[in-house]
């Protein structure tokens, strides 16, 4: 029974936990944007001002924090591990607690600089804005998250009276301290639900009714903004008896972009892989990796399997790319351009099993792309499915130097061989 509870709990936490380590999702928003959004919903957040220039720093310190002795200065990048990161200019640490008169100096060392952390990769990320926050004296740190849970088939609130870091260690050691409250989607969050959550959090000084209201507001934000995850770690108590979301991670459902225009406008392309930004513009499903074989496939499952089989044959995939079932010739051309502009790519593998996607459309796209882009690397093409004969004929008649393959194994072997030359 305890083992089962452990499993259940750690599975629920699997979505919420270890979030500090991986923030690479399609839509990720900055800490200051998350705080601003929560503030709009009446959720208590530390007072903070986001600034992009030294003048703005001066102004903020003067007008927003006239009475503070100390402030927290936080680099805003879309990756975790900021505290232990190092700037390319040598300055150490992306998060500092400093005296008010040092804020300008410290912020100056961060703004416009590149911060490298365990999660950014060696190239780091540029710090466009810095978030100046009040330094709170926190009485207690708890954990709170709302997620859409597959097992519960609905929204699930997870609360733990101990927060801060290592929530998953706690899940292992003290599973009974973690409370899970599923919410009925049709009823919405009831007072009873919220009260159970607060009991699970077991705040020491925060007012119980206020806390219940805060939980309900968090749930409202979660639903209205199509979040897939809202994690607050730590959810803290201040010495003024309030619950405050000291740090929050919010994930939004990409599928809801059409009805969450405001949220999706918060996207910061400066934090993203430029290849992925270009792909998004062409409405292509692309994820950049760092291998040598560029891939173009139709269908996410087949695209993953193509990456797998390349590895299986000793190669390294440079990307995941799903052109989907309705890709136009123009999109195929764009996809090809992105693949060929990647310096690491030594060979390209096109693997298409046409269902809705027609092989002749892909073939025409490849031929057109080759006309527009200088093809410097070998291209292996494997076509099967709808209009395969037309597709193969178009490629043959183009006079392009292409390596054709019959099945997945053949295609992967040839691509790996071509890349190693």
């Amino acid at each position, binding site marked *: 029974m305890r083992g089962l509870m452990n499993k259940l709990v750690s599975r629920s936490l699997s979505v919420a936990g*270890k979030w500090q380590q991986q923030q690479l999702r399609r839509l990720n928003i900055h800490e200051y944007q998350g705080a601003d959004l929560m503030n709009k919903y009446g959720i208590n957040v530390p007072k903070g001002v986001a600034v992009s220039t030294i003048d703005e720093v001066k102004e903020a310190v003067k007008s927003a924090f006239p009475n503070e002795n100390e402030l927290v200065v936080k680099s805003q990048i879309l990756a975790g591990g900021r505290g232990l990161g190092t700037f390319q200019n040598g300055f150490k640490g992306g998060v500092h607690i400093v005296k008010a008169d040092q804020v300008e100096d410290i912020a100056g060392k961060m703004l416009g600089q590149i911060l490298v952390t365990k999660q950014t990769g060696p190239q780091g990320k540029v710090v466009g804005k810095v978030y100046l926050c009040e330094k709170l004296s926190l009485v207690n740190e708890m954990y709170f998250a709302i997620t859409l849970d597959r097992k519960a088939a609905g929204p699930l609130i997870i609360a733990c009276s101990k927060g801060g870091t290592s929530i998953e260690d706690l899940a292992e050691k003290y599973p009974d301290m973690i409370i899970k409250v599923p919410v009925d989607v*049709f009823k919405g969050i009831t007072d009873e639900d919220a009260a159970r959550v607060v009991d699970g959090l077991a705040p020491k000084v925060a007012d119980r009714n206020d806390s219940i209201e805060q939980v309900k507001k968090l749930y409202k934000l979660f639903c209205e903004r199509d979040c897939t995850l809202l994690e607050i770690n730590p959810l803290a108590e201040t010495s003024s008896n309030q619950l405050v979301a000291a740090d929050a991670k919010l994930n939004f459902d990409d599928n809801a972009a059409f009805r969450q225009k405001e949220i999706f406008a918060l996207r910061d392309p400066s934090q993203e892989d430029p290849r992925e930004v270009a792909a998004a513009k062409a409405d292509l499903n692309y994820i950049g990796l760092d291998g040598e074989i560029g891939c173009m496939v139709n269908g996410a499952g087949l695209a993953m399997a193509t990456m797998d089989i390349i590895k299986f044959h000793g190669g390294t995939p440079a990307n995941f790319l799903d052109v989907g079932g309705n890709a136009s010739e123009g999109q195929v051309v764009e996809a090809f351009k992105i693949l060929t502009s990647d310096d690491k790519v030594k060979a390209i593998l096109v693997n298409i099993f046409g269902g809705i996607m027609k092989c002749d459309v892909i073939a025409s796209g490849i031929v057109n792309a080759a006309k527009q882009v200088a093809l410097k690397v070998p291209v292996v093409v494997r076509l099967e499915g709808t209009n395969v004969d037309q597709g193969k004929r178009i490629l043959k008649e183009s006079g392009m130097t292409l390596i054709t393959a019959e099945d997945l194994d053949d295609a992967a072997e040839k691509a790996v061989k071509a890349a190693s030359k």
Partner: protein
Amino acid sequence: MARQASRLIQSLSSRISPHKPQISPLTPSSSSSQLLTQSRSFSAAPAPQPAVFVDKNTRVICQGITGKNGTFHTEQAIEYGTKMVGGVTPKKGGTEHLGLPVFNSVAEAKAETKANASVIYVPPPFAAAAIMEAMEAELDLVVCITEGIPQHDMVRVKAALNQQSKTRLIGPNCPGIIKPGECKIGIMPGYIHKPGCVGIVSRSGTLTYEAVFQTTAVGLGQSTCVGIGGDPFNGTNFVDCVTKFLADPQTEGIILIGEIGGTAEEDAAALIKESGTEKPIVAFIAGLTAPPGRRMGHAGAIVSGGKGTAQDKIKTLREAGVTVVESPAKIGVAMHEVFKQRGLLN
């Protein structure tokens, strides 16, 4: 060859009389004998339940029939021999499309055509509502092809599904379901399939076609292929399909195609182990090389916090006696091998 000939005959006959109701070459009937069958059906026993959700008797309407995708795939379904009996596009009720009657609502369509299944080609903002409508009309089966339905919408659909037992949903974000030679509901290319003995259940679309292609190539063919789709909240899962396959005499072997994210494969492994079945089961899990934390196309394909990895799924399936192949090119060959080892090849 015979299939191509029958398709040719059908397309010729439709060109001769474009407004004649489409006739499936596999269930020969003319308009008059259709009437006869209908009147007979009021007193005769109802057709037996399909072994795996659909068969030659399934009567299908298309929600979104007049849209681009709806039109194309309804044409394809008719050509394949699926019993397409009507369509639904609000405000176009009373008109005809592709020789089929169009209705304003699912309830009207069901009443007039005696349909028991629906396929949905409706854009994401309206798809969840379309599923709910089909559920309220108490159709036996709803297949939702649409990719991109917001998760919050699907969670409500799921909650509603769980409160009733009349309607089954397959999908969303799925290629559909096909019983080769009898009924094709979805976007899969019909011609790669061959009636046979392997049941296939998959979260992917095009990767499924690979498995179909391979099992056709090794001569085994398919009994029924179910695409359950790539979303985290869906109507039918591996467990539901495996349960049917285990009980279906036509299904002698089962192929599972999974991917990273969630625990559906692990749940299936538990069921398989407990069943003690001797039917050969082969699986492939995509995403062994996917980086953690990234959503790999499908909304449900994400490894989070170390859970939902391909490695875990492969291990759990192997412990249940499933043959898990590491190369997607070897699925058909592996199944053939297991059949051979167990003396199942005739």
